[in-house]
Structures are given as structure tokens and as C-alpha cells.
């Protein structure tokens, strides 16, 4: 029981990182109807920026600076490569983001080099005791920061002018335009927000074990998360992220014991299995809206 709870807490910690990434995907999807495959590169870039800045400014300012920097990079990408494609098929735009991801990752990898880079976080592998449980403090930090960011984000969408504009544009772009919402600004804002969240997630991915060139694959686990939650649901993204994190953590703890025939490291691909099962039952995810189409 104790092991199970610890495993769940680890899963919730990692899951909240996936939730941050998934939120980025969903925010961009809601605004532009495109899945941005550039998120992995942005996440990695965020982690690398933190690792370079932490030595200069200290860890916490470095995180904020890096997040703002990556938000700027995301804004630039949106302006240069995505904005000219408005009105083109979404598949084409998605493949453009895939190309951007490939290019950006080469640049970021040049900054990483061949070794593992530490992000200079204060948590490392330190552990704290919660009653009978012994858990790593970084998981608690992940959960706490994600909870705060999600609360801020939902408040932003609920109570501010720009949040309202984004919701309006996501609901119907033409009507939003007619009401005076600058849809271009909404696109830019959504990419900026996604870049910001990706950078924070990247920092958390780098805590403890550090980052290397292959770390970008972790960001792709947010894809099962958004599919499980439903592509256009913010709440679904958080729920999907947590589900994916917990499932992965449970497989990590118990699959070797109960199902060794699945092979080593099955935990890494378990999110995709969950995704397939959910999709067989609900093609639009748990919280996604069913598309109603007219011919």
C-alpha cells in the first residue's frame, strides 16, 4: 500500500509536467485548430535556457527569464511560419510545425552538447517524508507549481479581456472577428502561452536527472494526454496529463513483477496503449467535444 501511494505520487508529479505540456498543445489547438509538433523543441529549449541562466542569475529568476525567452521564441515562430498559413489545411500547418521542431532541435542540441546538462534546480533527488510515505521533493514542487499555474491560467481565461477574446476566437473565429477581437493577437498569445508553459515543463523534466539530447521525447507523452483528455478541453488536458503520469508510474513500479512479458521499459510506451484504448471507446477523448459537421 505504501509503495502504491508513493508510486501514485510520483505519477502525479510527472503527470503534472505532462499536464503543463498538454495545456500548451490544447491552447494552440483551440486557437488555431493545429497540433503544434514544435512543443518538444520548445520544451528542450526552455530547459537548456534555464541550465545556462541558472549559473548567472540564480535558479528562480532563471526559470522566469527562460520561460519569457521561450515565449518570445514561440511568438517569433508563430509570426514567421504560422501566420502566413492562415486558411490553409490544418494538416499542412501541423507538418510545418514538425519541420520547425526538427530545425529548432538541432540548434538546441548544439547548446546541449554530448553530456548531460544540469538545470541547477534546488530539489535534485532530495526526499521528504509525508507521514509514512517517503517521496522526492521535486514531485511535490511539480504538483504545486502546476496547480498554481493551472489556477492562474483558468482565472485568466475566465476573468480577463484577453481570456475572453481567446475563448471567443476558439468558439468561432469569424464571429469573434466581427465583434472586434483581433484573431491574429489571439494566435500570437496562444503560442506565447504555450511556449511559456513548455519552458516551465522543460525545467521540471530536467530536475534531478538533468537534460540530454534525447529528452525531447518526453514532450511527446503529452500527445496521448491530450488525446485521452480530448483535443479541445483545457480541463481534459490536465486530467489526461495526470492519468498518463500515474499509468506510467504504476507500470514502472509493477509491470516487471506482474507482466514481465511486456518487456523492459514498457512504462515508456504505456501512455500510447492507454490512448488507443480510450480512443476505441471514445473517439473524441474523455472531455473533447464531438464534432458536428455539415456538408
Amino acid at each position: 500500500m505504501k509503495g502504491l501511494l508513493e508510486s501514485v505520487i510520483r505519477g502525479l508529479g510527472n503527470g503534472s509536467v505532462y499536464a503543463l505540456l498538454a495545456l500548451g498543445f490544447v491552447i494552440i489547438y483551440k486557437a488555431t485548430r493545429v497540433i503544434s509538433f514544435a512543443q518538444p523543441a520548445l520544451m528542450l529549449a526552455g530547459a537548456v535556457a534555464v541550465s545556462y541562466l541558472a549559473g548567472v542569475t540564480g535558479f528562480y529568476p532563471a526559470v522566469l527569464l527562460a520561460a519569457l525567452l521561450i515565449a518570445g521564441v514561440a511568438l517569433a515562430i508563430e509570426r514567421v511560419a504560422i501566420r502566413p498559413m492562415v486558411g490553409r489545411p490544418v494538416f499542412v500547418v501541423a507538418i510545418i510545425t514538425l519541420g520547425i521542431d526538427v530545425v529548432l532541435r538541432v540548434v538546441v542540441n548544439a547548446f546541449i552538447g554530448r553530456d548531460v546538462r544540469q538545470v541547477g534546480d534546488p530539489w535534485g533527488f532530495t526526499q521528504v517524508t509525508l507521514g509514512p510515505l517517503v517521496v522526492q521533493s521535486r514531485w511535490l514542487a511539480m504538483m504545486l507549481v502546476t496547480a498554481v499555474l493551472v489556477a492562474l491560467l483558468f482565472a485568466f481565461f475566465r476573468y480577463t479581456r484577453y481570456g475572453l477574446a481567446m475563448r471567443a476566437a476558439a468558439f468561432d473565429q469569424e464571429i469573434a472577428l466581427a465583434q472586434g477581437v483581433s484573431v491574429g493577437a489571439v494566435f500570437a498569445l496562444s503560442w506565447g502561452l504555450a511556449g511559456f508553459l513548455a519552458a516551465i515543463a522543460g525545467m521540471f523534466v530536467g530536475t534531478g536527472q538533468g537534460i540530454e539530447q534525447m529528452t525531447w521525447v518526453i514532450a511527446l507523452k503529452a500527445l496521448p494526454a491530450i488525446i485521452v483528455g480530448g483535443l479541445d478541453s483545457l480541463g481534459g488536458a490536465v486530467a489526461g496529463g495526470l492519468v498518463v503520469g500515474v499509468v506510467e508510474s504504476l507500470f514502472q513500479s509493477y509491470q516487471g513483477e506482474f507482466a514481465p512479458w511486456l518487456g523492459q521499459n514498457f512504462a515508456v510506451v504505456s501512455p500510447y496503449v492507454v490512448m488507443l484504448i480510450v480512443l476505441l471507446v471514445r473517439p473524441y477523448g474523455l472531455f473533447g467535444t464531438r464534432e458536428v459537421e455539415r456538408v
Partner: protein
Amino acid sequence: MTETRTSAGAPPDIPTGRSRRVRGRPLLYTSYAQDMALLDTPAKKVSTGLLVLVAFALAVLLQDRSLEVLAGAYVLAIGAIGLNIVTGYAGQVSLGHAFFVAIGAYTAAALSGPVDGENLGYGVAELWIWLPAAGLVAAAAGVLVAPLATRLRGLYLAVVTLGLVFLGEHVFKEWQELTGGPGVGREAAIPQLFGVRLDQDGPLGTKEQLLYTLMLALLIGFAVAARNLARSRIGRAFAAIRDRDIAAAVIGVPLTRYKVLAFGISSFYAGCAGGLLYTISGYVEPGSFNLLLSVQFIAMVLIGGVATVSGAIAGALFISLLQPVTRSLPALVPFISGDTTQTPNVFQVETVLYGLLIVLFLIFEPRGLFGLWIRVRNYWKSWPFSY
């Protein structure tokens, strides 16, 4: 009036079969057969014939090193044509092409491998047995995946097929009896045709010449088959589904059946390409079937031209020739290094070029290389007038 009719009930005078072309009027069709012909103008017949002749002549004109690169490019072109069928013609976005390529590669390798070797093998080295088998097993996998595709649309499907690549990678890394495991790999399929080993120098030519000719012949076969498919009833159904699937269903196209068919045919091409691809190097490693391979196929289709067979071939040639070209860059551009430990090295330049080419083509010429060709052709058609 009734004078135009020769007898009551007979159709008016519309020629249905083949009929003579009007000289000097290449775009004047006098029968449906002419309109639907694969090579519908005399100029196309001549240029395609010449192109095929030149391609076969290259087998004796080029050096073995170049032939090897081109042979690989032809195999990739078969795979790209396959992806074009499902993504270009039928409009179902698939990022999972690498998965089907892997299934083909391992089916072929297992069938032709030695019976008592380190890995699974059945000792059937004849190409005409393992090639269709590789295609059919991959097609079966495609048909199994297709039910998901019929429920999902657009980017949901893209993400699911991407998941397929990761699941496949895991299975192939773990199933060591079949694949040899990561970092170790196994020997690839042996191309043997009626007792003649094509991957060894023999009386008919060097290894590279034999493989090049084989791949070229197979590519022509697969390309003609794909063109035929595209102009048939099935091809028109695919196009209808791509343009608007609900509208297609309304006019009587059974969506499920044709989506399953699209995935099956596409996977058949992928499986055949997978079986052939590694005969050149003679070695398969389970780590090579990753997302990057899928992205490369997508790049070939997009850079070449969506929903065109000649475009897919051009894209595959373009992407395959990118590597030798970038490899020769360090000699020309001093700051690019051939050493992987230096920062601007050839591998980085190559990867950046992939990405940039995808982005630039999609922004500036969405029809790809095929679109560039259409522009050039239209310019010269009306030359010296601008329209």
C-alpha cells in the same frame, strides 16, 4: 432530329474504344480512353520512355557508389508512393509509415534468414516469395489499424499513428529473437531471384548494378500500379474522401471500406519498401524505424508533390541525394565540419535542411517539386507570351 441516329435505340456517335489522335493537337481527345490514358500526350510518351531508358542505362554509366545511393532512393520512392496513396490521395494523415516499413523489413528478413541462424529464419531467399509476403503482412497490419482510422479524423489520426511508431519501436526492440535487439540488429533479407544472388558480384554485373536494376524495375512496376489505381474507381473514391468525407459518403462511397483499402494498399507498399530497403546494406537495426523515418517519408511526399506519383519519386530522389550532397559540403564550405563532435557539422546541416525544406516548400510551393515543374511547363507552353 432523328437523322443523326443511324438506328433506333443505338447511342449517338461517341467513340468508346481507342481511336486515332489528331496530329498537331495534343490536347484534343476523341475518346474517353484517350482522356484517361496514363501517358495522355505524345510528348509524355516520348519523355517517359527516354527517362526510363536513361535510368536503365545509368546502371552501366555510373560508378557503384552512386548506384547504391540511387538504388536506395528508388526503394524509398516505393515507400513514398505508398504514403502518398493514404495521405495524398485518400487524405488520411499517417505518421506511422515507419511502423509498416519495419513490419515489411522483418517479415522479409525472417523469411529469407538462415533456418539455424541466431535469429528467426525460414530459409526462403527467393525474392518473389518474400517480397509479396512482406507487403501482405504489412498490409494486414494496416487493415488492423484501419478501424481506428475510420473512427478518427484529421489530427487525431496523426497522433494515433505516431503512437503506433512508438509501440512498434518498443516491440521491435524487445523481440530479440526476431530483430536481434537494439544496437545488435540482424541480417536483412537476401535478394535471390531464381537462384541468382543479387547482392553479390556475379557474371551479370556487380552487386550494385544488379540491385540498382532490380530496384528500378520494381519502382516502375509499383509506380505504374499506383497511377493505375489513382485513375480507377478506387482512386476517385479516395479523392472524394480526401476532399470531403461526409459528402463522399452521401454520394455513395462506403467510407469504412475505402479507408481500410487505402491503409492496406499503402502498407503493402511500405512493407515491400521495408523488405527491399535493407538488402542494400544487408543489415537491419530495430532503432532505425523511429519517428524520423516517418517524417522523412512525409517530407518526400510534401517536397515532391502531394497526390502525384512522379512527385513522390522526385521527392524520394531529392531527400536521398541530400545526404551525399551535404556529406561533400565540408570540402566546399570551410566552417562546416565532417566531424560529429564539432558544432556546425554535416549531420546537423542535413537535419536542418530537412526541416527547412519542409517548411519552405509548404509556405511557398505547396504542390512541391511537381508544382515547380507545372510552373516551368506552363511558362514554356505559352512562351513567348506570358499567358
